[in-house]
Structures are given as C-alpha cells and as structure tokens.
C-alpha cells in the first residue's frame, strides 16, 4: 500500500515555468486521473516524479521516499513514459530480459508479463515492426516486470484501439482493486472518466482542482467544468 505524494514541484526551462508548485496525492486502491490540456506540464511532472528530470523545487515521494532512493524502484513503481522506449532492433523478449536484469527481477517475469499484455505471439519479433498499440502494450509489460504497487502511466492509451483501451481500463481497475496506486495522465476526459476515481486537473503547470471525479462536474457537464478550469472555455 503505497501513497504517491507530490508537493510544490517546480521546473523552469529558462524563462518558461513548465511546472509551477504542483501538488497531488495518489492513494492506494484508487485510480487517479492527472488531467490537463497538451503542454500543461503533465509529462514533465511525471518525469520529475520518476527522477528523469531534476525539479527546481518541491518533491515527489512514495511513502516518503524519493524514487531514486527506493531500494528496488521498479518493484515499487512501474512507469509508462514516452522517454522510456524499447530499441527498435531488439525483440520484445530481449528488451524485457535486459530490463529485468537491470531491475533485479527474475527472468521468469518476462514470459509472465508478455502473456499479461497479450504479446507472447509477437515476443520474438523486432520491436521496430510493432504497431503503436503493440508498443504501448510492451511499455506496460516493462512497467509490470517488478509487479509494482504503484503504476505511473503517461498517456498510456495513445495508439491503442478500442479493444486495447478496454484492456487497459480492466488492467488499471484490477490493479486498484488489489490495493495498488495508479496515476494516469491524459488530456482525454471522456476516456478516463470511465475508470478514474480521483482527478487532479492541471493547467499551465499548476494543479487547479483535485478531488473525486464525481465532484468535478458537480451537477453540470463534466467537460464544461474541465474546460473552464483549464481555460479552454471562454
């Protein structure tokens, strides 16, 4: 049972403040949607959360421990990020075997996760021949290698077909039902509203609203509430 807590996270690129004192809490047993328009700072926040980008201020911790200080980070957190790709000339099996070796996971996890994401039949094909959806499944397989309590997923439905989206929804719900913590970023409200419990809305690098999804729209239209919060609706 691990809680992800982000507090006062800030990142500046020259004169541009990409993330500006952002905070959120993703709790065990809940799927937290991290929603915002393109360029709102979602990906930068997740990269800082996972130690790939250094914040100028603030912190992101898993039960009080920074990602880089976790003893076996991928046993606690599994992540899907666009910055963490497989080599196109490698087969999926090789890619996962190397990731397992790096992360200190048993080689037996490789066929397990390949089966879990329904890629076993294509396991020995070069990743360069994969469709976008297959790559997303492989990214999820990589995230699941350590059977982590926390999943951090950056736009994981990109490229997935309807069947893939349903499969992802079932996977995410199952992880949360088992007590896992899921933080999932997206700019497609209609899609994630089907499976998130809590919502953090981000706009221009700041968290502008957080709470249960049911409270976001109140009695009105959910999409209107989101667009109003993010400045997308005049």
């Amino acid at each position, binding site marked *: 049972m691990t809680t992800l807590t982000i507090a006062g996270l800030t990142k500046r690129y020259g004169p541009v403040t990409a993330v500006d004192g952002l905070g959120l809490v993703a709790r065990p047993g809940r799927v937290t949607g991290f929603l915002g328009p393109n360029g709102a700072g979602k990906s930068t926040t997740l*990269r800082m959360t*996972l*130690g*790939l*980008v*250094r914040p100028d201020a603030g912190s992101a911790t898993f039960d009080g421990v920074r*990602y*880089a200080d*976790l003893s076996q*980070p*991928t046993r606690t957190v599994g*992540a899907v*990020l*666009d*910055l*963490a*790709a*497989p*080599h*196109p*000339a*490698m*087969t999926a099996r*090789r*890619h996962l*075997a*190397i*990731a397992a*070796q*790096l*992360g*200190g996971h048993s080689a037996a996890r490789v066929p397990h996760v390949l089966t879990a994401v329904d890629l076993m039949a294509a396991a020995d094909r070069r990743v360069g021949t994969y469709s976008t959806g297959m790559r997303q499944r492989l990214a999820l397989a*990589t995230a699941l290698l350590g059977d982590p309590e926390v999943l951090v997923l950056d736009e994981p439905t990109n490229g997935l077909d309807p069947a893939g989206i349903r499969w992802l929804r079932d996977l995410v719900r199952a992880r949360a039902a088992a007590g896992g913590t899921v933080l999932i970023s997206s700019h497609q409200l209609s899609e994630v509203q089907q499976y998130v419990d809590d919502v953090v809305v981000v706009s221009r690098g700041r968290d502008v609203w957080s709470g249960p999804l049911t409270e976001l729209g109140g009695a009105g239209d959910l999409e209107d509430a989101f667009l109003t919060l993010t400045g997308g609706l005049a």
Partner: protein
Amino acid sequence: MTSLVRAELQRFFATRIWLIALAAAVVCGFGLAGLVAVIGPENSQPPLPPLGTPEGVSVLLGLVQITLFVPATLGTFAVTSEYRHGTIGTTFLQVPQRGRVMAAKFLAHAIIGAAYGIVLALGAGLAIVLGSALGPGTLGVPAADLVSSLVRLAAAAAIHTLIGVAIGALVRNQVAGIAVTLGWFYLLEPVVMIIPGVNLVYGILPGGAAAALTRSTWLSQVIAEQTAGPTALVLAPWAGGLLLLGYAVAAAAVSVAVPLRRDLA
C-alpha cells in the same frame, strides 16, 4: 554491479552491432595487414620497408593502429543509441543511480573493446606471420616482441572504445557524437601529425600515445618528417601506455559524472 554489466553485455548482443564490430575487427586487423602483406610493403608507392625488417612490421602495425577510430566510433555509437532510441529512460527507471549505470556501461565496453582488440590483434598478427612466412621467410622482429606489440594494440583498442563511450555520454546526439569521434581520430589527429610546429603535440594525443604504446610509430614519424619536418614528439612505449591509460581514466570520469545531473528530454 555484475548484473548491470551483464545487462549491458546483453544489450550489445541483442542487436546486430556485435556482428558489425566483429567484421570490422577482422577487416581492420587481418584484412588490412593481410592485404599490405600480400602486396608487399616494398611494392607500394612510395615503397615502404619490407616485411622481413623491424620497420616493415612497424608499418603494418601502424596501419592497423590508424583504424583505432573504429572501436572509438563503436563506443560512441553504443552509448548514443540509448539516447537516440529513448532506451536510456528505461535504463534509468530500472536503475536511477546513473553513476552505477554509466560505470556498468564503461566496464561492459572495456570488455567489448578488449574483445575487439584481441580479434584485431590476432588478425594483424596472423597476417604478419603468414606474410613473413610466404614473403621474406623471416619475421622482422623477435616473436616475443611481436606478441608484446599485439597485446598493446589490443589494449589500445579497448581504451579507444572507452574514449568513444565518453564522447557518446558527453554529446548524446548520435550523429554529432559519431561526427566528433570520427572527426577527432580520423581527421584532426592525422592533420595535426602533418602541420609543422603543431605536429609536436601529436605524440601526446590518443593516436600518438597509441602509436607509442604499440611501437608502431615508424609510419607516423616518416609521415611527419616528410610533411612537417623531424619534430614529431615520440613517447617511450611505457609513457604512451601511461598517457593512454590517463585518457581512459578521464573518459571514465566523464562517462560517469556527466549524465548524473542532466535532464532527459
């Protein structure tokens, strides 16, 4: 650390890069030295010392030593591939301690570079021995000296691989990294060798140090003398080896330290 090094070696063998490296080592070692040995160095234009002399052996080793830009480029290619394809993100997610990752990469490429060097040196040695047997009938140097030179050649190849790794870690962009490595070893160093006055520093550059270490300086000395006057600095083999080791240590420091604080983008 052992499992990280093993993972890096797995990565090397997971694509066709190892086959390309093996082919390059054979071509640059056995192929190049064999071709010159078959033609006969004395038949080249201008004529070079024949194979049955110490100078003739030095010429062949010198030609092979000039190809050390290949393992350097391989080192650069291997590291920059991680950034080009975004696999570095997967690596740093699995092991957030970047210093450990880069140290493992460095150690793995020391092994890969040494393996490249062994294939290169064995090929060159075989070509020299076969060429000497079929041509002049005598080896230009005592066998122990040849073996010693070949061991040094293999070590120089390993160190060049590590320098390539360091350039890759520093530059990150694959095209730019390879351009820097090739530009340095294939263009800049040879140009430095032939510019009067400036050629003094050639001896203390990686190429000059490698030539001193492998005792294959005859070629570079003659080139320098014919183009820039007899002023090229030639280090003793031990000094060349020590200097090259210094470059390897500097490369290790750069490889491990530089990626520590950089953001991935």
